[in-house]
């Protein structure tokens, strides 16, 4: 009785906070309301909806031994206490997506992204992660691709695999572009990030050669050296002799990252990849905890309006209306197909009890959503004028603080040139104008929060700390992603000519790494050279591809639920699937065919053809831009067609199962009673 009363209070508090957010009509609103609304919703959803999923839909059974128990090998199949595994899983799913996506989507105001981040997670994103984790656990830790193949047939399996590879290429390109925009012309940032390379190699030798297996010692030393490099970066940036060596243009950084991706993919993992992975995991967990603490202490007021005029599709950061583009831009903060890969990777092999999957799958994604809520707070606490000055493309703003101020005044926000100049000086940069990509504005927001909570006067240090943290773990995604892409390509090309599939054969490794790097490198360079700043076209492409992968995962989940004989509950994955398909296919269609050249790739291509004919665009450059538009349109179409095919193949399976033309036998591993004491 008492607990019912407590839950009623939690629900009431959450509902009240939503009410305040929805009805508020003042200049600013405190971030506390946002946090309260989110947390209230999470608690109620976790307590009631995820329990419904566990008991009714999935049928979690603690008498059944998990793969960690049955196949225990002390290496990857390791029974792991649930809170430890929660940390492990969260560290694996949290990345740059939930931080960058909501910052970009703040163009529509803070309310649309907050609603989608919170309700999207509890009804779709967390359901996907949980169902896939549970299904993989019941199948000895099989991957999403293997499950797609088993549940829907080999064709769907192959399609899923090719889509994952293609999505990886777009993902790596767009994340690399975020780093380029954060580090260009910033000697402090470039110096700090360059320092991570020798630090990682040093850690690698420590763990492999000098003191084998002592990973914690090496990581502790690495974190200390990294913080020293961060402090040292300031002296480099202020030194007239050293600063020019570390002041790199966007294109230079892009080529350096491409070279780095290739080297990291072919070098032995112990030398670079593994130490950087540890370093970035610790920085990530530490920074997210610090940010949460900072928001709780500082309780900043949000300056951004709840909804801006740009819901009509005229936004400067990316084109397109609130529907469907808010749902594409927020990306991983609400639902991410990529999580289905992690949830069918290491985590299912470590669960002690079936009931633990609820906290780890559903709860882990709630945590990710909370990171996205913090990113929304960090973006929305900036003055909207400042936010748009940082994030709008330079071509729109004109090159100077003066012209930027005038353009932004035209949008109905105010920012003085002096504000932008002094803000840049305060964070130790020459300029903050036109740094699209989300990372710099997030870093400014984080610096505000952290310096507000833990002492003023350190703005520049906090800003570069935030930049370093974002660049560090994006680069970790770039190097591990390139390597994973290389393995997938080798596996696929092994079907064509067997030796190409041997991951230990050096020529094949060099070739496959080169192809993967060239693929994402091409999109990266395209983004850097793009007059609109690249994020404008690449981020929606990434959002679309990631959501389409989520559609594949939700289809597999629906098939699994129907096959297990619980078809009456199939709506838990089928309804989110329909919503994801509606938003993503609409967005994809508009990106290809919209008549507005800012939005549609084909219309943009036609505009360029016109400009070449008029003589306002140089022919060679124009031809390249036109090719890029055709390429982007083709890729979007391929993603859409591949996903629709997988969903159709799944739907055929559902009909066969529901009309009993196919027996509802599941592909789970046989039941084994657990030996653990209840």
């Amino acid at each position, binding site marked *: 009785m008492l607990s019912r009363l407590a839950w009623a209070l939690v629900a009431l508090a959450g509902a009240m906070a939503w009410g305040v957010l929805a009805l508020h009509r003042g200049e600013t609103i405190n971030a506390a309301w946002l946090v309260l609304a989110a947390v209230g919703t999470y608690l109620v959803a976790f307590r009631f909806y995820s329990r419904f999923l566990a008991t009714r839909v999935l049928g979690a059974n603690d008498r059944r031994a998990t793969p960690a128990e049955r196949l225990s090998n002390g290496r990857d199949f390791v029974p792991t206490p649930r809170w430890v595994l929660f940390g492990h899983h969260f560290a694996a799913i949290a990345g740059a997506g939930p931080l960058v996506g909501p910052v970009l989507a703040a163009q529509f105001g803070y309310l649309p992204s907050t609603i989608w981040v919170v309700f999207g997670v509890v009804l779709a994103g967390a359901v996907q992660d949980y169902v896939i984790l549970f299904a993989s656990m019941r199948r000895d830790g099989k991957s999403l691709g293997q499950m797609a193949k088993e549940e829907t047939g080999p064709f769907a399996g192959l399609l899923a695999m090719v889509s994952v590879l293609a999505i990886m290429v777009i993902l790596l390109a767009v994340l690399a572009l975020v780093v380029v925009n954060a580090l260009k012309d910033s000697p402090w940032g470039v110096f700090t990030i360059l320092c991570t390379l020798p630090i990682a190699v040093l850690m690698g030798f420590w763990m492999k050669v000098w003191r084998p297996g002592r990973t914690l010692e090496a990581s502790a030393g690495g974190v200390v050296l990294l913080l020293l490099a961060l402090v040292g970066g300031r002296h480099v940036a202020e030194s007239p002799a050293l600063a020019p060596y570390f002041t790199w243009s966007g294109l230079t950084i892009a080529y350096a990252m491409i070279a780095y991706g290739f080297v990291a993919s072919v070098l032995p993992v112990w030398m670079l990849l593994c130490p950087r992975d540890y370093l970035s995991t610790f920085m990530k967990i530490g920074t997210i905890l610090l940010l949460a603490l900072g928001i709780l202490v500082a309780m900043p007021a949000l300056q951004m309006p709840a909804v801006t005029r740009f819901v009509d599709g005229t936004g400067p950061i990316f084109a397109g209306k609130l529907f469907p583009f808010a749902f594409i831009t927020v990306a991983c903060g609400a639902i991410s197909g990529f999580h289905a*890969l992690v949830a069918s990777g290491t985590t299912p092999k470590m669960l002690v009890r079936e009931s633990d999957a609820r906290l780890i799958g559903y709860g882990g994604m709630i945590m990710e959503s909370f990171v996205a809520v913090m990113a929304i707070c960090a973006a929305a606490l900036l003055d909207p004028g400042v936010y748009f000055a940082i994030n709008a493309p330079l071509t729109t703003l004109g090159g100077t603080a003066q012209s930027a101020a005038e353009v932004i005044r035209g949008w109905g926000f105010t920012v003085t040139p002096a504000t932008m100049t002094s803000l840049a000086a305060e964070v130790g940069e020459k300029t903050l104008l036109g740094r699209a990509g989300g990372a710099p504005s997030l870093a400014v927001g984080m610096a505000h929060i952290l310096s507000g909570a833990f002492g003023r006067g350190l703005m520049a240090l906090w800003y570069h700390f935030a930049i370093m943290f974002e660049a560090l773990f994006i680069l970790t995604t770039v190097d591990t992603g390139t390597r994973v892409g290389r393995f997938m390509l080798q596996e696929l090309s092994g079907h064509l000519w067997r030796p190409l599939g041997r991951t230990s054969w050096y020529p094949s490794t060099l070739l496959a790494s080169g192809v993967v790097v060239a693929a994402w490198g091409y999109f990266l360079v395209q983004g850097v050279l793009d007059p609109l700043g690249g994020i404008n076209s690449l981020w929606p492409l990434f959002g679309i591809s990631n959501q389409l992968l989520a559609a594949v995962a939700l289809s597999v989940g629906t098939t699994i639920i129907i096959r297990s004989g619980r078809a009456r509950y199939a709506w838990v994955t089928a309804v989110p699937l329909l919503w994801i398909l509606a938003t993503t296919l609409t967005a994809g269609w508009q990106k290809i065919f919209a008549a507005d050249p800012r939005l549609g790739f084909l219309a943009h291509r036609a505009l360029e053809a016109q400009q070449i004919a008029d003589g306002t665009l140089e022919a060679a450059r124009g031809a390249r831009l036109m090719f890029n538009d055709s390429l982007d349109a083709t890729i979007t179409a391929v993603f859409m067609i591949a996903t629709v095919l997988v969903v159709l193949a799944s739907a055929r399976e559902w009909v066969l199962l529901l009309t009993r033309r196919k027996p509802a036998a599941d592909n789970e591993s046989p039941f084994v009673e657990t030996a653990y004491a209840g």
Partner: protein
Amino acid sequence: MRDSLEAMLRIIRRVAGMPDYAAQLEHLRHCHPGEPVPTEREFYESYLRNRYGDAPTRCC
């Protein structure tokens, strides 16, 4: 005191996905008694092969 420090370090290792040699030794003693035991170096190498094999371990 020493035990709780060890327990904490083990938690940190697990969260970061680091190898845990002590856990491996326990597992071998428990499930495969009498079989040869890898050195810490050998264990670290097999861990690396396993972890950075072919499936994504990190996300966007």
